[in-house]
């Protein structure tokens, strides 16, 4: 059992259970992608293919090439450890033969010999300690450095890859790529130096064996293919079982997360028993899968341990015959048998590496898929003049369809020219493509057809960084970083306090920011002050304003703001000569009123364009849309009050308590345990607006026309 222990100890180094690192292999790793973007040599390890063993060796190769010197030192340390393990036995043996027995026989203890013996034993122990540091600490350093290196590469990839790529991959999955997959990928590296170190022992033993007796040595040499064969069978047999267990582990977490997420529904409908049974079913499935995988392991470990023992017995049997025939000397048989017992440990060590290889390959494969992902968003060399005042915006037959539904384009050819300094409202039913268009204006995605031009230049021809410098998008779903208010507003730009304050003032955020414990320097988020949804939206708006954008895109970014405050924001935007062209996605009439002009989107095209009054007068669809809330109110109250689309207050879901707002806070993790589940917090955290909209709009796309018809029917 102790030998099994060591393996565990080696893998527990990160302070996390290796088991928690388990995640099901993502379907997307299935198609091994070519190294199109191997801007680091990390990608050279190759994606997982058919030969897991060779792939495993390649992963090890990546790590060894990454940290050659530390790795070499670790192997040297391990070799020293191996030698000293034998050495300590030898030192005690030497002391026994040369000091203990003669002294006792003589009946006197000459101090010098005894001192030498004592010092020798201590010296060997010290040398062994040096070896231990090499074996364990340096091996750890290799692993930790490689993890850090790959994580940096992953972060670079995440930041480089376009939003469309992000939308295709759940946040939880990407987080586990950066976390547990990286951990898993280099797990075989932990015991590797040890293994290589003891291989020195092993080689010495093998050479010794062959020098002693070639025939008997061959029996010893047969152990290696035996171990490899055993391991192959084990991998084939246990691999799928472990993969299944990992998958089920994810299911357990999913059910738990969903159930706790919907805790209010569970509680208010009294469905605790039902939920517990749902969770218990998943848990039992995981338990059974773990037990099945454990059984494979239960068999493999003792069998691997038995192999050298059986080798010894084979040598004894064969040796006895050979000695009887006069072909071998008894002494040689004994020493080969002894050498084989020495091999037991190195063979175990090789087993640790082999045992971890399949998991390493899976982990690295998933990491590799990220590192080698292609990115289609390219930049040109165009530059804009950034002090030219408001921008001119041209939409030229802009088409857009989401990857998930290419046959259902959201935008089907939107053309419009928006003159500098104008404020334009985008109005349309859910699914009409407003938010998609807003997203395209900030170049968070590229049109699938047509072009968007800023001052006559196609956004795709502009150099990296040009679009963010000219365009600011404020989405409905705000995202704030876990930093100070100041850092969130300035977001890396050099801005004076006065500029920041001016932006906060227009966004109606200055007063509440001043009331925060540390004013502008108050930290927001999990570890800092919790803000309400409306307050967060106002900070996001200030963030856009402080950059003096030439094109400001507002996507229903005041939905959670108190109506009266919203009015103040809107009038502030109107009064302040922003020096920007403004495109605002509008749901509320007050927002529409801010605009010089309205673009009425319907079915993915601009159905009409003009002032609010003009459209009311001539466009039936627009009229229905804009007055539907009031009509709904009439239905409900039989009262003709046109104020019906206002909300009373900025009130997050059933929340008087600040605690409530944590649910909408940024996921920031204190607990390692959270590692995997943090990802799942994405669902409760601020979601990227485009992603939300994407989902909503694709879902609603098919319904769009039907809905409008139905609406007409309803109000007629």
């Amino acid at each position, binding site marked *: 059992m102790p030998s099994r222990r060591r393996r565990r100890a080696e893998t527990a180094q990160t302070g996390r259970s290796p088991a928690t690192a388990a995640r099901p292999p993502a379907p997307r790793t299935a198609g091994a992608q070519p190294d199109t973007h191997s801007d680091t040599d990390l990608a050279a390890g190759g994606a997982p293919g058919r030969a897991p063993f060779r792939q495993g060796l390649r992963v090890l190769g990546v790590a060894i090439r990454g940290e050659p010197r530390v790795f070499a030192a670790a192997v040297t340390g391990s070799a020293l450890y191996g030698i000293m393990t034998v050495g300590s036995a030898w030192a005690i043996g030497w002391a026994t033969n040369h000091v*203990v027995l003669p002294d006792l026989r003589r009946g006197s203890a000459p101090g010098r010999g005894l001192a030498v013996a004592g010092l020798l034993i201590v010296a060997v122990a010290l040398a062994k300690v040096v070896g231990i540091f090499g074996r364990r600490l340096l091996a750890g350093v290799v692993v930790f450095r490689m993890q850090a290196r790959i994580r940096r590469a992953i972060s670079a990839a995440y930041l480089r890859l376009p939003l469309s790529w992000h939308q295709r991959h759940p946040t939880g999955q990407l987080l586990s790529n950066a976390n547990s997959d990286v951990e898993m990928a280099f797990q075989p590296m932990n015991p590797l130096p040890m293994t290589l170190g003891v291989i020195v022992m092993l080689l010495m033993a093998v050479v010794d064996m062959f020098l002693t007796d070639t025939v008997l040595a061959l029996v010893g040499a047969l152990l290696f293919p035996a171990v490899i064969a055993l391991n192959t069978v084990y991998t084939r047999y246990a691999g799928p079982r472990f993969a299944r267990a990992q998958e089920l582990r994810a299911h357990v977490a999913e059910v738990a997360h969903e159930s706790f997420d919907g805790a*209010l529904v569970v509680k208010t409908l009294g469905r605790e028993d039902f939920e517990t049974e749902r969770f218990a079913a998943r848990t039992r499935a995981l338990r059974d899968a773990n037990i099945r995988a454990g059984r494979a392991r239960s068999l493999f470990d003792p069998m691997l341990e038995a192999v050298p023992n059986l080798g010894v017995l084979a040598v004894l049997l064969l040796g006895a015959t050979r000695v009887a025939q006069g072909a071998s000397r008894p002494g040689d048989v004994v020493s080969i048998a002894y050498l084989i017992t020495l091999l037991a440990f190195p063979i175990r060590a090789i087993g640790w590496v082999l045992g971890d290889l399949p998991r390493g390959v899976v982990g690295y494969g998933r990491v590799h898929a990220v590192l080698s992902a292609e990115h289609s968003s390219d930049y040109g060399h165009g530059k804009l003049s950034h002090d030219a005042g408001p921008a001119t915006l041209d939409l030229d037959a802009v088409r857009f369809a989401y990857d998930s539904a290419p046959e259902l384009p959201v935008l089907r050819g939107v053309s419009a020219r928006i003159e500098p300094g104008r404020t334009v409202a985008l109005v349309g039913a859910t699914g009409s493509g407003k938010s998609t268009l807003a997203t395209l204006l900030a170049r968070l995605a590229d049109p699938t057809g047509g072009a968007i031009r800023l001052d006559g230049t196609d956004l795709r021809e502009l150099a990296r960084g040009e679009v963010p410098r000219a365009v600011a998008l404020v989405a409905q779903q705000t995202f704030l970083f876990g930093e100070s208010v100041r850092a969130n507003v300035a977001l890396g730009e050099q801005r004076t306090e006065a500029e920041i304050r001016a932006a906060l003032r227009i966004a109606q955020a200055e007063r509440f920011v001043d009331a925060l414990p540390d004013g502008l320097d108050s930290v927001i988020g999990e570890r800092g002050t919790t803000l309400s949804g409306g307050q967060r939206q106002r900070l996001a708006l200030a963030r856009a304003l402080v950059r003096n954008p030439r094109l400001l895109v507002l996507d229903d970014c005041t939905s959670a703001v108190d109506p009266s405050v919203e009015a103040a924001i809107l009038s502030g935007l109107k009064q302040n000569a922003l020096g920007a062209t403004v495109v605002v996605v509008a749901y509320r009439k*007050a927002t529409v009123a801010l605009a010089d002009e309205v673009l009425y989107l319907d079915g993915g095209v601009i159905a009409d364009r003009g002032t609010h009054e003009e459209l009311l007068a001539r466009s039936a669809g627009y009229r229905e849309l804009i007055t539907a809330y009031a009509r709904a109110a009439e239905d409900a109250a039989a009262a003709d009050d046109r104020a019906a689309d206002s909300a*009373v207050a900025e009130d997050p879901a059933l929340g008087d308590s600040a605690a409530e707002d944590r649910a909408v806070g940024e996921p920031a993790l204190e607990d*390692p345990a959270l590692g995997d589940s943090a990802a799942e*917090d994405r669902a409760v955290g601020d979601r*990227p607006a485009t992603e939300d909209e994407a989902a909503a709009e694709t879902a609603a796309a098919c319904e769009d026309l039907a809905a409008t018809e139905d609406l007409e029917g309803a109000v007629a």
Partner: protein
Amino acid sequence: MTITADPPAIRTAPEIPLVREATGSPLLIVRKGLRLSPEFTRGIGVTMLLAFIATVGRIVIPVAVQQAVDHGFDAPGGVDTGEVRVMAALAALAVAATMLAAYTMNRRLYQASESGLATLRIKAFRHVHELSVLHQQAEQRGALVSRVTSDVDTITNFIQEGGLVLFVSVAQMFLATAVMAAYSWQLTLLVWSCFLPLFAAMRVLQRRTGARYNTVRQSIGRMLGAFSESLVGAPVVRAYGVEERTGRRINEAVDATRAAQVRAQALTVSTFSAGEIAAGLANAGVVVVGVVLGVGGHLTAGRLIGMLFLVSLFITPVQWGVEVLNEAQNAISGWRRVIGLLESVPDVPDPASRGRAEALPQGPVRVEFQQVAFAYPGGPPVLRDINVLISPRARVAVVGETGSGKTTFAKLLTRLMDPTRGRVLANGVELRRVGFDELRRRVVMVPQDGFLFDGTIADNVRYGAEDATDAAVSAAFGRLGLGDWLSGLPDGVRTRVGQRGESLSAGERQLVALARAYIADPDLLLLDEATSAVDPATELRIQRALDELTRGRTTVVIAHRLSTAQAADEVLVFDAGELVERGPHGTLVNQGGVYARLHASWARQAQAA
């Protein structure tokens, strides 16, 4: 245009009773842990016996080999192949027996540990739902999830291997000590004195190691936080071109993690090395002192050599023990968190669990608040002296600004929380005396966000009535006037709604939530109106469905729309934790009070268009 005052700017977090880690000595925690999962210890005797056999087997093999050599190869008159064959056969038998014992032991361990862990997971899961909303919301979702996943997992390693190793190690250590003492008490003292400083330092080292691993955990948490910012905030990062800055933040966190890991590893290795040095000192000491003793006639050569072997028998388990202790510490901290959860007492208990539930008289519910006050633990009062009576079948709207206390009012009404003072009565019975079973059937709340579970529409509606058939679900939609909407879906009631219901629009999710409440058929309905903008067609549907849903029931709506307030029989106006006005819309508008001001603000908004 005047601007109404901002709601109180900072929502200072009230001191919410977070789920704490269980305290107490490690031994106590282990005892509690074992009691929670009886599977761990069930049949442990047999498993230990097998472990013993497997361990003894390891010794039997070298012995058999040595016998074969001594009596076979070195047999007088040349090699005795027969003897070798017999010994080899015996040894092979021993190998097989050892394998079998190890295999059976492993199997039993996996079976016992996985079963025990599953039990613990399910218990912990159930308990999370037992906690009040206050508790649930005080915790990060992820933290709660980790109580039932990774916290439990940390116990796995220890249970599956560590615990047994620790037991065997300690046993072997004491056994070795006993035999050593029989050989030479002086040398035994010497060996122990080499290890005593290590044992003494162990507590400190363990604590330090624990602290360093804690730092590792925290830094990993921060690193993941940084990663998740770059993922969740991807649109912002791109829209504002702040990739470099974001990357820097991630990389700093990545490097901090690496540094913390190396530091933790260094301490672990040092601890292990200290054991190695102690072993070296003990060995050297035994040789030196042993020879001196031997020369003095106090020890024979054989005993001295025997001592040297015994010392190694003593040292090995000590070293394994040190390793296992690290793991034990992880397991215990995992246990602490899970036990802490299980020991946190639900602050809104079900009276039925103590067998003291009272029945809620049949029929539409009459609600009465008697001098009700509420404050979050350690916080200022959120509601003050609320007295109100809502008659059966009344439709009441509750309005007020953020922080006015209207949602607290709703939570007390549905007994998601208990008042800190006063009583909430339904049909004359205090809410906290009504069993949850009945309460949740008769009093149903539709929360604002209309949370849906990943499944079909019918599955979600069945959260309201477990045994409703698909046909019954369809019929419910029909009665709510939503039949046309439902038939427009690709698979009708079997349409899948996706995670959190995100395949549906926000408005459509509300429709499903309404159907869910409708099929539950409560006598008191509480609606928290959504604020989010939904498209007009859906809005109309919601209004229609609400009319049907609220018919004939006592209904309380947290209103965010003027139309809702207008349509209500009565409006309750909350301000700064007090019920300041009540009456029909028309009356209140003309009173010139808080409601009139709210109304004026709405009206202004409307005129702006």
